């Protein structure tokens, strides 16, 4: 059950033009840096990317945008990216904005084999247009929910802190975010990790993503882990 591949290039070898990819991370936190670099190098085009954000101009998914590799972006928030804005306004890039909880839950639904979920997010807004809605009794009162479908992605690409060769993953702090959800949701799931260990080295009670969901794993290199908003306080 060894799922180790040599590096990002090998992990993404069969990602081709026009595929749908999920990419883990929140802002620049917990993003699969190595695979993004490899996708830029490979030059695949026409990608549909499902990710909470679109990176910044020169990092994260922004690198794919620079090379015009993204046809459609599905995200909850795409701020702070001038090239993104330019491509969007020029009609080069298609964007679908989705409430963050809906995005997360549609990933989870795919990983849990649930074809659709119900959420109140977006009821009464333009997000609800064209969507099926339904009322349920919640806490004794009628409440309206939208039906939202599970995502269908060719590949999920996630970043974990540690992983073992069988694909078990452990995330760290808020770098967890969408990663374990997308790891469950890809038809093929690629995990890059800061430290790849042997089976048995991870405590089975601490594993966030069981290896059954992961198809390929490798230890990444040269993590930059860029900080988007460096906020600090002074020591006294």
């Amino acid at each position, binding site marked *: 059950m060894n799922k180790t591949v040599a590096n990002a290039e090998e992990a993404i070898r069969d990602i081709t033009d026009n595929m749908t990819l999920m990419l883990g991370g929140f802002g620049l936190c917990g993003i699969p840096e190595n695979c993004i670099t490899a996708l830029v190098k490979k030059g695949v085009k026409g990608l549909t990317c499902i990710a909470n954000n679109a990176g910044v101009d020169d990092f994260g998914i922004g690198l794919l945008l620079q090379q015009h590799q993204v046809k459609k972006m599905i995200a909850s928030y795409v701020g702070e990216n001038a090239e993104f804005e330019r491509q969007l306004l020029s009609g080069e890039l298609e964007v679908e904005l989705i409430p963050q909880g809906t995005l997360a839950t549609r990933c989870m639904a795919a990983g849990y084999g649930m074809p659709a979920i119900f959420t109140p997010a977006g*009821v009464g807004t333009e997000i609800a247009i064209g969507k099926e809605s339904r009322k349920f009794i919640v806490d004794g009162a009628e409440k309206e929910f939208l039906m939202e479908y599970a995502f269908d992605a060719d590949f999920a690409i996630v970043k974990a802190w540690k992983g073992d060769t069988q694909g078990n993953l452990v995330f760290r702090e808020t770098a967890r*975010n969408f990663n374990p959800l997308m790891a469950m949701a890809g038809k093929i799931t690629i995990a890059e990790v800061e430290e790849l260990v042997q089976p048995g080295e991870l405590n089975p009670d601490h594993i966030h993503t069981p290896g059954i969901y992961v198809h390929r794993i490798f230890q990444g290199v040269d993590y930059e882990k860029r900080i988007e908003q460096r906020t600090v306080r002074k020591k006294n």
Partner: protein
Amino acid sequence: MLDKIGIAKRIAKEIRNGYYVNLGIGIPTLVANYIPKGMSVVLQSENGLLGMGPFPFEGEENPDLINAGKQTITTVPGSAFFDSAMSFGMIRSRKVDLTILGAMEVSDNGDIANWKIPGKMVKGMGGAMDLVASAKNIIVAMQHVNKAGESKLLTKCELPLTGVACVKKIVTELAVLDITPEGFRLLERAPGISVEQIKNATQGRLIIEGEIPEMVID
């Protein structure tokens, strides 16, 4: 008239011991600085953290530890990390006691608009639609009027909505107001602000009953 810090301080007085609170970006983030001492409050950050602490000391920033505004932060003892589905799961199941967020417009039935201005680049709703659709209690921190002097407390929002009939209370530079079935109910005036000034700055239905006290802050 209140400044941003004044609004944050006034909102902080709404927090109760034992609350789990989600703070939006902007003025709501400032509220954390004015939670009364001795009160046990846990801050939720919807990117996957309960128990958010202050910004880190210089040199101790951790790229793996950020809040929903992508700012570097710290944790407090008793904190817990989780994924985004569980994060919005606890929001949807109304485990978060209080949500504080900013708005561009609020209507007198509690509709809120805070994510999109037609003709301008739309950055996205992030978690705002999930938060307003599910929160038990939403307090909005906002400016009463825009730069042109036009009211942002309306009969009906003009901007695209983020959520409907969800806001419970509003704190502006001029006033504190509740949302009631009859419209905005004026609760308190900002220091030095008259009821007349608030009336003039409010386009939506405004209920004024009895003497309206001036806010007490600090």
